[in-house]
């Protein structure tokens, strides 16, 4: 039993590190064939390493904090019955919180559907979860600058809301149409 528990993560680590070793070997081979490029490649990689190192630990701490403090139940409770502008804002807010990958969001969305939450809120929540996440915005701020980050953030929020509302219309419309043909068929 104990052995099993220990084996698993070790296998996972090997699986994670193998591609890194391959990349490293390819880089070493390339750089020894073309020594003239060494300086440029190493300098670029080093600069990105430093930029990443100054921000990644903080981002990870934020994600850890929010994944523990904000529970799935909380999201479902608040998003389940709100609608209108309040619903939209809450959907964006909960989606943007630094918690987990999309794999976590789909089950939450599925519970929301069963609870009768509005389609638009679910779509907005999922899209915000995918692309308006706070850690992502921080990386964007760091690597692409405040102008780029703010412009894309505002545009994304606007279009995610439009998308949520229009997909809701399309689904309602097609459900109604399906209902009609079924009714006329009877």
């Amino acid at each position: 039993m104990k052995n099993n528990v220990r084996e698993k993560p070790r296998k996972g680590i090997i699986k994670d590190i193998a591609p890194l070793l391959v990349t490293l070997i390819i880089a070493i081979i390339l750089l020894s064939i073309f020594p003239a490029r060494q300086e440029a490649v190493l300098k670029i990689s080093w600069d990105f390493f430093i930029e990443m190192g100054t921000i990644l630990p903080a981002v990870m701490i934020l994600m850890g904090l929010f994944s523990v403090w904000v529970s799935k139940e909380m999201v479902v409770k608040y998003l389940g019955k709100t609608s209108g502008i309040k619903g939209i804002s809450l959907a964006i807010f909960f989606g943007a919180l630094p918690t987990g990958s999309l794999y976590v969001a789909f089950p939450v969305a599925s519970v929301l559907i069963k609870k009768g939450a509005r389609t638009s809120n679910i779509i907005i929540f999922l899209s915000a979860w995918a692309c308006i996440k706070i850690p992502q915005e921080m990386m964007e701020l760091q690597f692409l600058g405040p102008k780029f980050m703010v412009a894309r953030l505002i545009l994304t929020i606007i279009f995610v809301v439009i998308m949520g509302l229009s997909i809701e219309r399309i689904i309602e419309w097609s459900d109604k149409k399906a209902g009609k043909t079924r009714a006329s068929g009877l």
Partner: protein
Amino acid sequence: MSSAAIFVNIFALSCLVISLIKDRAKTKQSLLVAVKSFFRILPIVLIIIIFIGLLLGFVPLDLISKTMGEQAGFGGVILIASVGAILHIPALIAFPLAASLLKGGASVAAVAAFITTLTMIGTVTLPLEIKELGKKMALLRNGVSFIFAIIIALIMGMML
């Protein structure tokens, strides 16, 4: 350290302090999650850092600007948006990669399209999305996302 990094670190630190005051056990658990996810993402972070070095060091810059730069126009934006939609790399890693493309001569619109489709559209997560949300909603969300990603990218290109 850049001002962005300072801001993010101060923000994380204040959240950590608030959490510590409110609940010690939960804070400890959070830090454990943070350390675990840090080491889980570390290999791919290092891969991307090496990859960016090789990309900017070896690939001729006019090749990047020809396929993704201003001169590539609308076709270039569509092309890189499709690449972003298919690729499955962690979003956090996408930003340094996007920055390196921008440095290499890609246009603002192309880079914005790449990031937006990469984060919004998931081909790998699509089966799970269909299972949890149904085919109609999942396909609509991903399809409409692609169109809006292109629109966002084009507006970004005009603005910046």
